[in-house]
């Protein structure tokens, strides 16, 4: 089996799973309970938070646990909108965001908020100037992703942050779900950013767990009301085993992060160079500084993405159409559409997404199969 769909989800790491199991059995107390078992669980929870904060360069109190990327994005966007609605109802985002951002924005529009969706250029990048031009007196939030999940374009976070320095009252949210663990920290961690979203299952932690960064002093309206866990911000009994697993997964992720990213980059280069030499193939993920090392989006012209996915699947190779979250709806890629790619091309797009465990041998095998599949489908052209 070759698994090249790591941007959709990753396999849980074995030792993370061991941590999850041990935590489930030895630290099963409710962290809010007063007795010893509760205290033990609380200690595990807070030590995990501290470890995550340290590894990410945040303060301990700035890490708040969630159920994952979708909750994080929903919470930060709605939580900010609800908290600041008296100051304005205008939000700026981009036309290539993940559905958990897009659909949240649509919900807010129904509640009377105004959202500006910034365009992207033909390489899938937004521009800081566009952000600046879109700012109004009533703008309360700017939300942009760090790494595009479909084609891997790295967005100019620092440049946007620089623009927003002149507008301290506007909250800045960065969806960093696809950016973590790829040695891209220096590209998306910026002191001007107020909120980040992260999701565990993108880096070999269990699914159903994630965390947000919430800069010291910033506020969010809670979406989950209840027992007051997570400093009254996010009620619900904490998922301590998954949190412990996530803390471990981040530690493993950070070990030799640069080497792992280089390895992915080499595999990506190999595939991209190969794709560029093929007829009737479009590659949307470029090699270079403003593209992440793990995502390669391409099309075999005239063949629907879904067909390509299934053809690979028959050979025990797993890739996806551009975004797992929209692939079942048969939608064309939102990002490619925003890049003004023709609809018939966009519906052909597939995404290969790597992780640090993928090998050169797997890539060679993939390329061999790609050639065969490509040759087979040339009858369609």
């Amino acid at each position, binding site marked *: 089996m070759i698994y090249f769909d790591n941007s959709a989800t990753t396999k849980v790491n074995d030792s993370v799973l061991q*941590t999850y199991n*041990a*935590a489930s059995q*030895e*630290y099963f107390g409710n962290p809010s309970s*007063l007795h*010893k078992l509760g*205290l*033990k669980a609380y*200690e*595990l929870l807070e*030590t*995990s938070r501290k*470890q995550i904060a340290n590894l990410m360069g945040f303060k301990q109190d700035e890490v708040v646990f969630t159920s994952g990327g979708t909750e994080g994005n929903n919470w930060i966007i709605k939580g900010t909108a609800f908290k600041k609605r008296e100051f304005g109802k205008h939000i700026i985002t981009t036309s290539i965001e993940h559905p958990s951002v897009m659909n949240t924005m649509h919900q807010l529009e129904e509640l009377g908020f105004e959202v500006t969706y910034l365009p992207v250029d033909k390489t899938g990048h937004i521009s800081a100037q566009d952000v600046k031009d879109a700012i109004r007196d009533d703008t309360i939030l700017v939300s942009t992703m760090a790494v595009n999940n479909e084609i891997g374009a790295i967005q100019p976070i620092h440049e946007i942050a620089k623009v927003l320095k002149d507008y301290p009252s506007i909250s800045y949210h960065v969806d960093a779900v696809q950016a973590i663990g790829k040695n891209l920290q220096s590209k998306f961690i910026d002191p001007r950013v107020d909120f980040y979203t992260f999701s565990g299952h993108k880096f070999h932690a269990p699914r159903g767990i994630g965390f947000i960064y919430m800069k010291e002093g910033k506020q969010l309206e809670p979406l989950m009301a209840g027992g007051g866990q997570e400093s009254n911000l996010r009620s619900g009994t904490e998922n301590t085993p998954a949190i*412990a697993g996530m*803390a*471990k997964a981040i*530690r493993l992720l950070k070990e030799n992060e640069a080497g792992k990213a280089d390895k992915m980059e080499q595999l990506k280069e190999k595939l991209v160079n190969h794709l560029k030499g093929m007829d009737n193939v479009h590659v949307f993920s470029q090699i270079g500084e403003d593209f992440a090392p793990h995502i390669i989006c391409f099309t075999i012209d005239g063949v629907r993405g879904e067909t390509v996915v299934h053809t690979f699947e028959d050979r025990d190779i797993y890739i996806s159409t551009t975004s797992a979250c929209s692939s079942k709806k048969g939608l064309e890629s939102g990002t490619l559409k925003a890049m003004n790619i023709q609809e018939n091309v966009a519906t052909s797009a597939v995404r290969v997404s790597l992780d640090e465990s993928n090998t050169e041998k797997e890539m060679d095998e993939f390329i061999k199969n790609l050639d065969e599949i490509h040759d087979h489908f040339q009858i369609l052209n």
Partner: protein
Amino acid sequence: MEYTEIMVRYGELSTKGKNRKSFIDRLHGNVAKVLKDFPELRMQPHRDRLHIKLNGTDAKPVMEKLKNVFGIQTFSLSVKVSRDFEDVKKKAVEMMHEAYKPGMSFKVGTKRSDHSYPLDTNQINLQLGDAICDEFPEIDVEMKKPDIKISVEVRQDGIYLSYLTVKGAGGLPVGTAGKAMLMLSGGIDSPVAGYLAMKRGVDIEMVHFFSPPYTSEQALNKAKELTSKLTAFGGNINFIEVPFAEIQETIKSSVPEGYLMTIQRRFMLRLTDLIREKRHGLAIFNGEAVGQVASQTLESMAAINDVTTTPILRPVATMDKTEIIRLAEKIDTFNLSIQPFEDCCTVFAPPSPKTRPNIEKTRKFESSLDIDGLIQRAMDGIKITTIEHGDKFMESDQENISSLL
């Protein structure tokens, strides 16, 4: 640079006259207890300074601990060089490389306790200054407020150089001002009161009331852990646990609700005073602040204080809560204090205690109780433990957790 010793300067000694020796002995003992985890250290207490020879120990953690010990004015990290002046020059330049950042000024200050050394103070200052100026042509010499002061001390066994002088905790060595009891709850105020008592050299012993099963083992451990935090400032502290449940139950069942709190406190004070007497203490400290809660109004204090003539000192009496919290954070007891365990003051707290209890009425309500019997049984149940620096009492799975993560 590898440093060889830390030179400790005493605080407030000039006023101590004949007590100098006991002051120095006590400080030496307190420092030794706080630094007990560094077996390579060798201490030499002298009349005007305490020398701590590092013998290869990393100075940084030692200095961190030293910063907390009361009775220390300042301390300097020094390196011992041979009496060969070329060596001294070389080391001084090396030291400047460590300390100097562009734009800084410096001076050299020399003390000669060995007057047989061939160079006098001025010559040493000048020659070292020259050597440094040769190496750092941009550097400014500044006599009044230099950024870096290289201190040179000429002794018979060698020459000591230092540039890093750290401010100590000040105050008096714990133990030089006599012994007193501190009424320690698990709250924010009493550890701060203890810290302030220690700062004036008072050797405190903790008196902690606990009421199982109304209060938990964790609450008791929390009080012990708070005590352990305070050992950082002067070494071991005795912790005295006094069982209090029977007294509380008895008071609850036979005294009007409004006076529950006042009478409980009077019992606590009686017990603390008895313990003080037995253990040869001279005073009682507590964490009361005027007006903070019902038991801390002046009327309440008067009604509670009615049971003894022993001096009761309240170091935080006039501080605002925020000031107390700031100090608690500084001495690292705050996060521990706010952990939510019931303590004996809260379990039997009446919904509306009298803020202005009447002393006559208090005495009258109390007179129906078997005061002597209750006190005796509580005294019989007392347990005393010595808490040393670094002792841990709160349940901690940190090791196991670290291996999991």
